[in-house]
């Protein structure tokens, strides 16, 4: 029965794409969606990415980096001091055997990572390097290292102020720590800020957590099977996501959750193989990254252009300061909320410093970006807004071409990886968005269903729209979350500092000790 329906679906899709009349209409639908979407989101995008007067530097990028730097300094470089301890926590050295069966630190980290590791690491890096040049990688790594402190702050609060219900389930995230934390400090406006955050979180879930994923998954699939209308991919994706989040078909989600980590390992493995084969060029690639970081090597906007792209894509990829990870991490069972903060600081490290850097190195080494032999600088494309590439590729297609230059069949693996990553990120973000939605509208079945249906509709829009407006809206929505979240973290960080001081002294005195396993 299942086979028959799948067959008929494929034949319908084939018939749709085969008919020139329908195909023309379909492209028309894509264009229309794109136009309406770009118009509707334009003002919001402009506000979030407004540059400082007289410069081209968006204030939001500064906002994230300044916050990450402040948290790094305020907590005395917590990401380096407690790095070893974070690894020990993930290994379970400090887990009470009596709590076996609860969510472990490893599981919370893996779940949060499956929401962040994905297209940001594959397509996002290609966008950053394609526009900002290799130098963007340097700023991306720096943003990743600093972002570890932001993540630490928000995830500690996420666990500390989560809601634990009588039936044993939990709900946590910025909306809870903002309202409860402000209340505890006697500050006004917590509830309003929590509501504003929730609104942005819903937009972020629909944007970066949904439309961007659908869009790039479509780009990848059509790159292999040939061009066809985006809304078809959208409908297929929406149907599968609908089956999981509304139909409760856990088996699909379970399979994805198990396959995605292996895809991640496969991706990093392939990148490593390409780097090992071209080991003689690694030094040159790092040279390009450093030189580009401070000179721009001819990219649009020069050094600042590289910096903006690096910081932007790092934040989009690891979501440090955005608040989404706090929702994912809040389910862990621990008597010490700060332990989850330590564990979460590994996330930007794995996501940005390791995986993103590998992608960037592969792109640089594969020489997909065209260098002007006379100046040694990168050549710009016709529009003058990005580096010219060998086949005019951008986004995920650029990463795909870069990997193909080392391993010819890898684009097929990458296509599967992209689809799975996109899918797992969508499932994660549907949960983040849902938590924000239920915070606003209550935890009733009807209200949950309304959000889930909206979420699925946006998958179709995301797949049909063209990359530019989707990326702009996705970035804007995710960064809007960071505006509220970071503003509140400044007030709440002293609560984390108190926890940190208490935990550090108890760890020092031996009161907190390892369990022998």
């Amino acid at each position, binding site marked *: 029965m299942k086979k028959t329906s799948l067959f008929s679906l494929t034949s319908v899709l084939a018939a749709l794409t085969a008919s020139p009349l329908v195909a023309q209409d379909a492209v028309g639908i894509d264009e229309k969606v794109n136009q309406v979407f770009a118009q509707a989101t334009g003002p919001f995008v402009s506000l979030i990415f407004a540059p400082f007067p007289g410069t081209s530097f968006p204030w939001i990028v500064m906002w994230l980096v300044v916050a990450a730097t402040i948290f790094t300094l305020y907590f005395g470089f917590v990401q380096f001091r407690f790095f070893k301890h974070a690894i020990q926590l993930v290994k*379970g050295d400090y*887990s009470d*055997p009596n709590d*076996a*069966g*609860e*969510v*472990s*630190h*490893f*599981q*919370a980290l*893996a*779940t949060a990572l*499956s*929401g962040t590791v994905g297209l940001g690491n594959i397509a996002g890096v290609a966008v950053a390097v394609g526009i900002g040049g290799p130098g963007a990688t340097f700023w991306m790594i720096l943003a990743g290292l600093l972002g570890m402190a932001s993540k630490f702050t928000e995830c500690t609060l996420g666990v500390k102020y989560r809601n*634990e219900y009588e*039936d*044993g*389930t*939990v*709900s946590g995230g910025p909306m809870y720590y903002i309202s409860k934390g402000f209340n505890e400090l006697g500050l006004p406006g917590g509830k309003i800020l929590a509501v504003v955050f929730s609104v942005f979180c819903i937009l972020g879930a629909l944007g970066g957590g949904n439309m961007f994923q659908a869009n790039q998954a479509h780009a990848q699939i059509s790159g292999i099977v040939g061009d066809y209308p985006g809304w078809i991919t959208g409908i297929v994706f929406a149907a599968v996501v609908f089956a999981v989040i509304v139909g409760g078909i856990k088996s699909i*989600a*379970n399979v994805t*959750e*198990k396959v*995605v*980590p292996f895809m991640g390992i496969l991706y990093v493995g392939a990148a490593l193989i390409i780097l090992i084969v071209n080991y003689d060029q690694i030094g040159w690639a790092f040279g390009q990254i450093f030189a580009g970081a401070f000179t721009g090597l001819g990219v649009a906007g020069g050094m600042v252009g590289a910096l903006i792209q690096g910081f932007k894509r790092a934040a989009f990829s690891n979501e440090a300061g955005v608040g989404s990870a706090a*929702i*994912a991490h809040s*389910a*862990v*069972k621990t008597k010490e909320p700060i332990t989850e903060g330590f564990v979460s600081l590994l996330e930007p490290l794995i996501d940005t410093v390791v995986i993103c850097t590998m992608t960037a190195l592969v792109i640089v080494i594969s020489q997909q970006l065209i260098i002007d032999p006379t100046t040694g600088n990168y050549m710009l494309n016709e529009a003058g807004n990005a580096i010219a590439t060998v086949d005019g590729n951008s986004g995920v297609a650029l990463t795909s071409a870069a990997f193909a230059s080392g391993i010819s069949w890898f684009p097929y693996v990458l296509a599967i990886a992209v689809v799975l990553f996109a899918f797992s990120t969508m*499932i*994660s973000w549907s*949960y*983040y968005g849902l938590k924000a939605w239920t915070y606003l509208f209550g935890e009733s079945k009807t209200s949950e269903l309304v959000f889930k249906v909206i979420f699925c509709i946006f998958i179709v829009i995301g797949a049909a729209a063209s990359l530019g407006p989707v990326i702009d809206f996705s970035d804007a929505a995710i960064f809007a979350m960071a505006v509220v979240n970071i503003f509140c973290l400044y007030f709440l960080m002293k609560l984390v500092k108190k926890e940190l001081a208490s935990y550090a002294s108890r760890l020092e005195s031996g009161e907190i000790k390892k369990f022998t396993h």
Partner: protein
Amino acid sequence: MTVKIVVGLDGTETGERALNFAKDMASRIDACELIVIYVIEWSPFTFQTAEENAQRHKRREEEIALATSRIVEPAVTALRDAGFTARGIVRHGDVAETLDKLTVENGGSQIIVGRASADGFAKRVFGSSTQNLVMHASVPVTVVG
């Protein structure tokens, strides 16, 4: 001194036979306590969705309640009714490792388990819990067929 014998149950018929063998042993010892243990297979290193994580605590409580009421409690009650000193423990974890650890923690001098219940491919690749227990246990293990 009371001799403590651990009986590892897995909810199958072979567990029942292990229990009978333990009773036979205990009846030959003056002061003997039988500790009935059921380990719910679980690993802290699996991958779960955010939603599964949010419901994990609730599921864990349900799993423990189910294992206690269906497997451990009936066994302990039957042993007590037959005049033995007995108590039960339910814990999540790797079956072989947890059974051994709990035995050591509770001062058990030996473990009695039913023979392997896993079949086919998985058993060939990973070995059964019983095999793992026999290979790594800190105290003597009796496997009842």
